[in-house]
């Protein structure tokens, strides 16, 4: 039953991930960490980091979360639930591309959702920051990571690995 609940959350969340892969994070944090307490904030942060350093989309972090809560069956169910809505929606859109592209309902609702999810992501970044930014070194790492990723073309994967090395040496 809990596994079904977990899958259902992933299906709903992925169907509403509009505007980029990171948009799922506010929804996942609310459901997994705050509502059901399946993960701590720290574990959620770790999952994001693993999703980022593994090849493929960030969504791969759901396999990590699924495994952590339910074992192998959880990881596999997580991947199926994450991509099922994508497959259904994309194949329908591919078929009716022109109707969809011109649809006023789709365009205007997305126009509202796209700026809104930025606010949500900012709120989650602050909430996770409350967990992980505890001293001058962690603050420094966050500021440098922000600057490097925002203003240079360095791959975030290297930034995360670099931060791990600094953590090993100084934290």
């Amino acid at each position, binding site marked *: 039953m809990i596994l079904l609940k977990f899958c259902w959350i992933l299906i709903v*969340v992925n*169907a*509403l*991930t509009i*505007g980029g*892969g990171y948009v799922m994070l*506010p929804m996942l944090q609310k459901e997994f960490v705050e509502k059901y307490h399946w993960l701590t904030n720290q574990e959620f*942060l*770790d999952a*994001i*980091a693993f*999703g980022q350093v593994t*090849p*493929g*989309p960030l*969504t*791969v*972090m759901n*396999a*990590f979360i699924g495994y*952590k809560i339910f074992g*192998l069956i959880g990881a596999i169910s997580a*991947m199926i639930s994450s*991509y099922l*809505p*994508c*497959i259904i929606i*994309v194949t329908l*859109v*591919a078929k009716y591309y022109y109707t969809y592209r011109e649809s006023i309902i789709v365009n*205007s*609702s*997305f*126009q*509202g*959702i796209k*700026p*809104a999810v*930025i*606010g*949500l*992501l*900012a*709120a*989650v*970044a602050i*909430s*996770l920051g409350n967990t*992980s*930014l505890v001293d001058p070194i962690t603050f420094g*790492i*966050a500021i440098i*990571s*922000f600057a490097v*990723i*925002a203003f240079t073309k360095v791959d975030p994967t290297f930034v*995360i690995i670099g931060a791990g090395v600094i*953590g*090993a040496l*100084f934290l």
Partner: protein
Amino acid sequence: MTNIPLKNIFLVFLKIGSFSFGGVYSMLTFFERELVEKNKWLTHDEYIESVAIGQMTPGPPIINTGICIGYKLKKIRGALTTTVGQVFTGTVLAILLAIFYIKTRGNVLLVSIMKGVGAAVVGLLLSIVYKMAKKTIKDYKTALFALSAFSALAIFKLNPIGIILSAGVLGLLVYGRKTR
């Protein structure tokens, strides 16, 4: 529909999925080189349309682009093949990392490493917010949408699923009449 064997489609997408670190744009170039230039499975226009569909549908844009290409090549079987191909390596690695993570819980060195990593993730998320805002927040209306959603979650602790659905409805009310 084409007569390209599913196995070949799977292998190309496995390759794309296994070497796709980070940036969306480097990924898209990789797609185009593999699918349009090397294998000639798609024309440039079909590829551009797939990228557009990937970006205007819910879910990770790269995966959705792949699903769309798979569907164009081999209908639903193609869509499933490209999805599995693209996420296979990442999923296996994520499971291995999870096993390792559970086994080493409490290890002092690992706790230190993850503290550094956690701080970097916060910086990463803020940079994503910055990049998305630069692209999307253009006038007072979009700024108001972003600010309201922020306060709804950060201050009023509302559920993000509800916030996204409400933003969609409000978008329909605000922009619905103006968009031709």
